């Protein structure tokens, strides 16, 4: 099921300049003769009811997902799992402002090799206290 294009939504049909007011102020043609039958007043279209919100253009997007990350190098290998959360607001049909929050976690037992490498580099063996005999 596909959505209608953004140009068909109510947001694209909004006009900042009210043509009825501008026409009434302009010096247009004379008013029609009184003998012509006046058209019946148009009945305003009923306002659509939305489940939530009051617009039909879906400007906001909330994306929630799970991610897997694999890192391999000459020193360590690691696998991480986390979440990806994205919030987007579409200003028009081709531009949006987006924010991302990405998390990655690794289990403790997978940290063994990597922690050995990093802790060994941080410690200075010359400053270690003498080991008891």
């Amino acid at each position: 099921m596909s959505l209608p294009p953004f140009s068909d939504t109510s947001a694209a049909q909004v006009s900042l300049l009210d043509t009825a007011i501008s026409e009434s102020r302009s010096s247009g043609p004379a008013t029609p003769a009184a003998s012509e039958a006046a058209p019946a007043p148009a009945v305003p279209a009923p306002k659509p009811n939305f489940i939530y919100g009051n617009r039909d253009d879906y400007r906001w997007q909330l994306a929630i997902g799970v991610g897997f990350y694999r890192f391999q190098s000459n020193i360590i290998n690691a696998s991480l799992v986390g979440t990806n959360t994205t919030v987007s607001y579409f200003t028009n049909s081709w531009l949006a402002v987006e924010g991302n929050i990405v998390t990655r976690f690794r289990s403790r037992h997978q940290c063994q090799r990597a922690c050995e490498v990093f802790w060994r580099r941080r410690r200075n063996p010359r400053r270690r206290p003498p080991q008891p005999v």
Partner: protein
Amino acid sequence: MSPGGTSCWVALTCNPKRPATAAVLSLYKPASASTTAYTPVFSIRGETDWVYTTFFNQTQNNFQAVLGGVFHF
């Protein structure tokens, strides 16, 4: 990105332009993503990224896959 239907993209980035530079640092980054709308409110999005870099004699492999849902409101 269109809110309806299916949209996808694939990109490939290769850094080494000169052989002398490629011997020191090189980067390869293919990526792809796809979004499929099942209802006007809900879509499913998938994404994969792979980055391979070399720096002198060190290499790094970075692979990432993401699968999730998208809510339109």
